[in-house]
């Protein structure tokens, strides 16, 4: 606000004060705001871990050197990076330091009466003068009152002011920005977000171990996870027959929680999450889990159950991995699943519709060390086959068996899976409130004008005005005012 450059005084206190003043100047705030805008750009052009982890690992494969270098600057995780946070935390501090003192100032200014009428009105804008009939002051007073001007009257002159709404709205707008930032930080400190993939028929108990991925805020207490269990009863997807585009997803669950100890049936859809207290459960994605039974050479079951496969395109061609470390020797299957099978021109399997009309499970069997004990984190959907030997390859219809040296695998059928996001976001209502206040404040500030009008009645009548920030509209207003005073119709 005071943008005059001040030389730092000697001593650390002086230096700190200097730094604070610089940080909280409006210029700094605006530079930080622009910086935040610029800093947001790379994250929209470079793939981000949080949104597109596959593309990030692809980049590491194709250009490892460059990618590692980029990673040093958190370019694959821009919005969680130290430098991005630094910008918005500085902006936050700058805004507070800049706007709070103004709020107090404005608070006093609102209650102050307008300053006295200047001596030389003819130096002001929109000056006009005429010979009056003595009634003008009375008429002016009435007009100002009816228009809710605040007035000060001395010695045959009136100084009137209106439009504090502009500054009030403006301050509310800037304060609301602080509120939004507060809400966002509150969410990241006290919130949680987790995801879980569940096959239809499975039960989900809300404890940390049930999640596939779970992230808490720094101050989130683990015991705060709401108590509930969900049973996935059924899932139905419908598609447009011409375009294959999804039309509707309906997930039926049975919910048991404190309020529903005996269980209650609920429906979750894409735009309507299930709410339990402050926690919301969203339907995020879906796919198929082939159900398989793996037997060893003696016919003993080594593994049985549904294995979620990861969709790769809109027709749900999916990839996945079946790992059987307990078989002797260990086996693994690299698989792909197509719900509606067709041979592509190149000979590969593609899916031509996202529903399971003619499903196929294509497996390639490997034997050897699966690498599960190596300590290197493993993808659920892939197998590192470098230390393994391929021992067979087959495409299966439901019910078919694939026998390979050392055992067999049966494709029993399939079941849909859904990916649920479970979110507790305690700051979001603050952010929303901030957003609403910001808009109201903006409207008040952009659509009102602050201006002063003076009138002095002596030998002649003199009228002048001044609009803050040279906002237009005062000239017309003065014209109306003067017509009123002259009693013209």
């Amino acid at each position: 606000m005071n943008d005059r450059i001040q030389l730092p005084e000697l001593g650390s206190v002086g230096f700190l004060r200097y730094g604070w003043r610089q940080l909280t100047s409006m210029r700094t705030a605006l530079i930080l705001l622009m910086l935040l805008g610029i800093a947001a750009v790379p994250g929209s052009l470079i793939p981000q871990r949080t949104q597109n982890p596959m593309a990030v690992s692809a980049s590491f494969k194709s250009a490892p050197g460059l990618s590692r270098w980029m990673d040093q600057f958190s370019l694959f995780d821009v919005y969680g990076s130290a430098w991005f946070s630094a910008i918005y935390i500085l902006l936050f501090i700058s805004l507070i330091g800049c706007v709070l003192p103004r709020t107090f100032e404005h608070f006093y200014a609102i209650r102050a009466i307008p300053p006295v009428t200047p001596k030389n009105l003819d130096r002001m804008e929109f000056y006009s003068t005429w010979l009056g009939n003595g009634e003008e002051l009375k008429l002016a007073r009435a007009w100002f009152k009816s228009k809710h001007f605040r007035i000060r009257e001395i010695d045959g002159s009136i100084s009137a002011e209106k439009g504090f709404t502009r500054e009030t709205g403006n301050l509310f707008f800037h304060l609301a920005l602080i509120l939004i930032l507060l809400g966002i930080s509150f969410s990241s400190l006290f919130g949680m977000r987790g995801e879980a993939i569940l096959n239809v028929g499975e039960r989900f108990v809300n404890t940390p171990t049930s999640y596939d991925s779970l992230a808490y805020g720094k101050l989130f207490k683990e015991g705060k996870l709401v108590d509930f269990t969900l049973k996935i009863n059924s899932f139905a997807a419908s598609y447009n027959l011409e375009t294959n585009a999804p039309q509707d997803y309906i997930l039926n669950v049975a919910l048991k929680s404190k309020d529903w100890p005996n269980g209650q049936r609920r429906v979750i859809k894409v735009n309507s999450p299930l709410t339990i207290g402050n926690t919301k459960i969203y339907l995020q994605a879906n796919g198929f889990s082939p159900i398989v039974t793996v037997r060893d050479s003696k016919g003993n079951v080594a593994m049985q159950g549904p294995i979620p496969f990861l969709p790769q395109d809109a027709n749900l061609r999916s990839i996945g991995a079946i790992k059987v470390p307990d078989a002797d020797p260990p086996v693994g299957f690299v698989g792909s699943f197509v719900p509606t099978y067709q041979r592509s021109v190149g000979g590969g399997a593609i899916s031509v519709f996202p529903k399971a009309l003619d499903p196929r499970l294509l497996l390639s069997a490997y034997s050897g060390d699966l690498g599960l004990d190596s300590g290197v984190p493993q993808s659920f959907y892939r197998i590192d086959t470098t230390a393994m030997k391929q021992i067979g390859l087959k495409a299966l219809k439901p019910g078919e068996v694939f026998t390979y040296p050392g055992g067999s695998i049966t494709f029993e059928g399939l079941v849909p899976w859904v990916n649920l996001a479970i979110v507790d976001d305690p700051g979001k209502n603050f952010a929303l409130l901030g957003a609403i206040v910001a808009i109201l404040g903006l409207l008040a500030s952009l659509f009102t004008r602050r201006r002063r009008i003076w009138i002095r009645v002596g030998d002649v009548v003199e009228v002048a005005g001044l609009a803050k920030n040279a906002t237009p509209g005062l000239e017309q207003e003065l014209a109306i005012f003067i017509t009123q005073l002259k009693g013209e119709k």
Partner: protein
Amino acid sequence: MSRTWAYLSNYLIYSSMAVYTLSFFAHAFETAWAVKIPDVNSAKVLDYKRTEKVARIATAMMILGFFLLFAGVIARGFSAGRVPWGNMYEFSITGALAFSGAYLVALRKYDLRWLGLFVSISVLLTLGTAVAVLYRPSAPLVPALKSTWLVIHVSAAIISGGVFLLANAIAGAYLYLDSMEQKGERTAWAKRLPSLEYLDQLSYRLVAFVFPLWTFAVIAGAIWAESAWGRYWGWDPKETWAFITWVAYAAYLHARVTAGWRGRRAAWLCLFAGSTFLFNYVYINIWGTGKHTYSGL
């Protein structure tokens, strides 16, 4: 039934293109043939009385084109059984509608007929691209897009976009005229343009007018994202660029109101902010990745 509506929509859009073409020619005629009578100083000056009739026809055609396009957009909505904002084709026809609508509304208050040539040609180009390149058969929405907030969010964003582009056109005209005046005289037809001061004020007023609406559009988008994806802000490319546009216009308003920027610098900043909006629409929709990029444009 939905087929019939889709055909009707296409015919209406073709007819509106024909009418906009007429409007374009009328504006071009007005611009070209107003230069006629010699002045006392024997310089040529403009006489708009000669072309007043044509100018009126141009505006009337623009209004007619607007209503035909409006009907076309509505019919498109009926054919799909939803609001007509599901893909790039539909965004483009609605965007063209918003742009010419913004122009016509502003025309009621300000003398903007000089801008009609530009408005009609850009609407024509947008519609032409939409029909020739972006056209997709009418289809219902994917589940994530089925939300009242989508209607609110997209309509606010499209209207804001129309006004931002209008402000950009005026800021562009400012820069053009300014460079012309720096070189010397205005060319004859440029005399048709209002004063630099007027252009400067006008682009500011347009931006100040829609900035709250754009703010609202971004917030409505966040509310929709919260109900669909469980987070109100995720730095998806589309969201990120909406934010960048917002920041750029906030900087523009600030530069004007508190730092007193006027004229060239302000006009350049306005153009810059507007181009972040266009970038978001064109680049992110077509080449970007993210939750907002639905397959098949």
